[in-house]
Each structure stands twice: as C-alpha cells, then as structure tokens.
C-alpha cells in the first residue's frame, strides 16, 4: 500500500490551487508534466484499486484491450489543443481532467500487464508516431493554436514532443538491436 499512499500524496499536491495554476501557466509543463503526473498518480493508486476489486477487472477486462482502448481515447482527447485551452477556462473540463487522467493511470496499470508483447508494442509504436506528429504540428503551426498560450510556448511544447519521440525511438532501437540476456528479451 506504499504506492497508493504515494499516489494519493502526489494527487493532493497536484490539486493544490497555486501548484495547479503555476503548472498550467506554462504550456509545456501543463501538457508534458502535469498530465503525466496525474496519470502516474492514478497508476500508483491503481495498486489499491486493483487489490480492492480484482475480480471486476478480471471479468470485464481479462485481456486488457477494453482498458487500453479507453486509455487511447482519453489521452487522444487531451492532446487536442482545445481540450487544454478549455481546461483553463471551463471548470467542468478542468474537473474532468483531474478525474479522467488518474483513471487512465489505473486502467493502464491493469491493462498493460495483461496485454501481450504484440499488443504492447502496437500501442507503443502508435504513441511514438502520434507524439512525432504532435511535435511537428506544434512547431510548424503558422498560427497560434491555443488562445491561452503564446506561440513561442507552443513551439517549446512541440520541441518537448520531439524530444520524447526521440527518446522513444532510441528505446525501441536499443530493445530491438542490442540484445541482452535471453530472459529480458522476452519482455520487449
């Protein structure tokens, strides 16, 4: 239960208004730090959730596919420039953010271990190309896409995505081309 406590602590810190406001004031931090931290909080809390209702997850999401589909949809939604804008101006979108992203973490924790290697690789590769596209999109966009952020911030976010994509590519390459011992090869 150590993870759960940590998760709750993280979540509480994230919803403290000054911290929230600060994080949201910088576009890069908003999308690439606050979002992932919220997901991480969910993942940690997932420890308790999965223990509390193990059978529900087993029954309804035995192979992890339903969970991962929801994860993909929710994260895709949060990648729209509009969702980010609206979370600043409309309170119920902000509320939805603080509920849906931790939910992503919980679902991800359950689904990820149930997915086969093929499923995991598929999801991973899709995020890789999606992040690459987002990077290009935010850097190259000739207009300001978000009303609440300056263009320069938008480009910084774009570069953030490019860096993440780069790291993901390096990860894939080292997994596929630098073989370790047989045992860890099995878990791409």
């Amino acid at each position, binding site marked *: 239960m150590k993870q759960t406590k940590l998760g709750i602590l993280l979540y509480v810190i994230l919803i403290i208004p000054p911290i929230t406001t600060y994080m949201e004031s910088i576009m890069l931090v908003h999308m690439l730090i606050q979002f992932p931290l919220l997901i991480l909080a969910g993942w940690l809390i997932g420890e308790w959730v999965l223990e509390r209702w193990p059978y529900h997850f087993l029954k309804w999401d035995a192979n992890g596919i339903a969970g991962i589909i929801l994860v993909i949809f929710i994260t895709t939604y949060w990648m729209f420039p509009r969702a980010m804008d609206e979370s600043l101006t409309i309170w119920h979108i902000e509320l939805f953010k603080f509920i849906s992203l931790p939910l992503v973490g919980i679902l991800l924790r359950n689904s990820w271990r149930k997915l086969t290697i093929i499923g995991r690789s598929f999801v991973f590769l899709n995020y*890789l*190309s*999606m992040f690459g596209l987002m990077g290009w999109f935010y850097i190259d966009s000739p207009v300001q896409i978000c009303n609440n952020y300056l263009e320069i911030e938008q480009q910084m976010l774009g570069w953030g995505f490019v860096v993440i994509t780069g790291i993901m590519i390096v990860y894939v390459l080292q997994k*596929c081309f*630098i*073989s370790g011992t047989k045992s860890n090869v099995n878990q*791409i």
Partner: protein
Amino acid sequence: MSEMMVRLKSRNNLIVTQMVVTGLTVIVGMIFGIIMLLVQGGMIEAMPATFYQFLTIHGTFMIGAAALAATAIMWYFLSHYVELSKKILKINLVLFIIAAVMVTVGTFSFEYAGAWTFLYPLPALSASAWGTIGALFYLIGMLVMGVGFLLLFIDSGRAIIKKYGSLGKGLGWDVIIGKKAEKDAPPPAVVASTMVTIVNTTALLSGSTVLIMNIINVINPAFTFNPLLAKNLTYAFGHIFANATIYMGVIVVYELLARYTKRPWNSSRVFLVFWTMSTFFTLLVYPHHLLMDSVMPRWMLIMGQVLSYANGLPVLVVTAYGALMIVYKSGIKWDMASGLAYLSMLGWTIGVIPAIVDSAIVVNHVMHNTKWVPGHFHMYMGLGVIAMTFSFMYFLAKNDNGLKETMVDKTAFFMYMFGLIGVSGSFLTSGAISTPRRFATHLPEWMGPAQFGAVAGILVVIAITIFVIHFIRYISVRNKGNIGSDYYDKKLA
C-alpha cells in the same frame, strides 16, 4: 493423425486461404488494369470518373495483393525457423478482407478516386467529385489494412528477437563482425524477414500517420497539415511497402532453388552485408520519388539518386547472381514452381534497370510521372513478386499433394512471361515518348503502346487464371482429406 500434423495442416490452411484471396484479387485487379489500357488505347469508352475509380482500385488491390501474398510466403517459411503466432496471421487476413471491402465500397459506392497514393490534400479536395464518406471509407479501410500488417510485423519481430536475441542478430551482424562463424549465420529466410520487419514497421508507421492526417483533414478541411511533410510520409510509406513485397517474396526463391538443385544457399558474410545495405537503402531512398520537388533539401535529393544506384547492388551482385550460380550446371528439374522462381529473379533484375535509370535527377526531369514509372514496376512487381507468388502456389500444390502439372500450365507459363514483358515494354515505350501517367485519355500518338499493352495484358490474365485454377484444383483435392507429403514439415516433426 499426429498432433503435429494437425497443427501443420491448420497452419497450411490459413496460408492456402490467404493465397486464394491473393489470386482472386490479382485477377480482379488485372482486369481493371486491362480496361484502363483499352480506354487509353481508344478501343472502349469510359467516363473519366470511372477510369480514375478503376485506377484507384487497381493500384490498391495490386499493392494489397502483393503484400498479402508476400507475407504469406514470408510467414510460411519463417515459421519453420521461429515460433510465429497463428492468431495474428488470422487477424491480419480478416482485417485485410474488411479493408478490401471498405476500399471497394468507398470507391464504387461513394465514387472515391484519389488513387492509392491518397496524396494529401486530394482526398479532401476533390473538386466535389467525391464526398467525405467515400474518402473516409477508403482512408479508414487503408488504416485497417495497415493495422493488420503492423501487428504481423510486430509479431515477426518479436519471434525473431526471441529466437536470435535481437534484430541485429537476425540480420547476422554478429557474423559480419566476426563474433560468430559463417556456418551459424541465420538462414536467408530469417535474414530477409528481419529486413522486411524493420523497413515495413517504419513504412506502416509513416503510412498510418499520413492516413490520420488525411482523415482529420477530410473530416474538417479547416484543419490543414504541411503538404511537403505529407508527401514525404506518403512516399516513405508507398515506396518501402511496395519494395518490401519483393524482399519477402524472394524467400521462396531461396528456399525452392536450394531444394530443387540440392545445393545449399547459405548466408555468407557478403550476403549478410548486402542485406544490411538493402535494409538501410530501402529506408533511405524514398526521396527519389520527390526529385521533382526542388523545395526539398538538396542533399536529400542527391542522396535519393546516389542511394538508388547503390540499392541496385545487392540484387545485381548477390541475390540474382546467387540464383544464377545455384542454377548453373546444376541439372535442376524444371517445373512450374522452379521455373516461376527463376523467372521472378529475371523480372526483378531487369525491372531494377529502368528504375535506376529514372532515379538520375536529369532523367527524372523528363521522365518522372510518365508511363516509364509504371513500366518499371510492372516488370518488378508483375514479373517479380507475382511470379514468386505463383511459384509458391505451385510449390504448395506439388509438395502438399503431388498434384500433376499439365501442358496447359506450361503454356500458361510462357503466356504469362511474354504477356508481362509486353505489358511492361509497352509502358516503357510510352514513357520514352513522354506519355503522362494516370491519364484517362490519350493523344492519338500515345495510343499504340496502350493497345499493345492491353492485348498483352489479356494474355497475362488468361495465364493467371490458369494458375489460379490449378491452385483451386489443389484445394479441392486437398479437402478430400488427402493430406499430403510435405517432406519438409515431416522432417521438422
């Protein structure tokens, strides 16, 4: 029947189904192709809308069929060496059929005619020729097909890594650097599969990215993307995906000729080096499709030309040369399977020549997007990949069932060979006289080669139909419970 036999049979069943789907798709695709040539030759009339729908369907079906057949070949032989997932193969086939239906509905019911290259922003901006729904059917269909293939290649990558340790080792890098002896090198089938896994995963990722860009743009045209990025992604996808079919298909040549001549076709160090070169070149040469975009970075275009030249080396020096060497004074028994395998190497090698010629920037300046381009790939794909496909079919029929080949089959072989040389030759001639590619109508001076091509095309369709009939005969014999004598599989068991 032993458990092993049952497993093998169910595995072969899937492959056989996949080959039937391919064979039928190829015939349908060819018929559309002939109709287009007839229209261009002024022998029949069709509305431009109809012509371009046929163009779209022809391209999509042929690329799809080639990929499906090639993956069947790769899967069949690769599964002798590594443990592949049958479930994934099945999922891929199902997704492919769904995709084919969606593409057909989009094209014929909703009049989508944006060509198989769906060059952004054409799907969205059709000058009101087709609507959102048609474009979405087509694009999502392609996306579904992409998902199937992506899963398949993730699976092959997983299996190769599991058996050999890494994709690098699948390409035999440890043999190249001398850490492992040549005799322990991965067999050619594994090397080729590894190469294709690497390049096709990349291709499919760029393809799905540009498809999603197109889909968003079609749904909401206010949302635009950078057209040059889209073009790069499209050709990275199209070029690699089309090329990879021959690198999968060639596995059947490696396996068959070695067996027929009873000579070993092993992975030597040179062989491995050249396959690694092929891997990189195939990934890097797609800018030769963009030579006529002077806004591209100059170094990319020059790289496109130089690497296209260099990319001819592996096939000219290793693969084709190896095939010639193994056949030379071998006392080989020629039949349909070995004959088609040998013919496919000829098709591949001579198909590479016009491609190399056209990849020179000065030549491309006057030959890009003329019929020279289809001339090259009809040779390369038609006489290359398709010959490999039918070589594999005859191999399965003979190996599994000992089904006899007749004079009709032999006649079909020559009809097919001369027919396709005729088709490709007519395209190349058209290209040399500046006939533009993808034109619904031709000027009178362009019509001659098109008419010739149409006649040659009819020969090819007849030949292919005979091939497919032979295969269907094999299936009907097979279904009578006469499980064959796949000596190879038995040996494995």
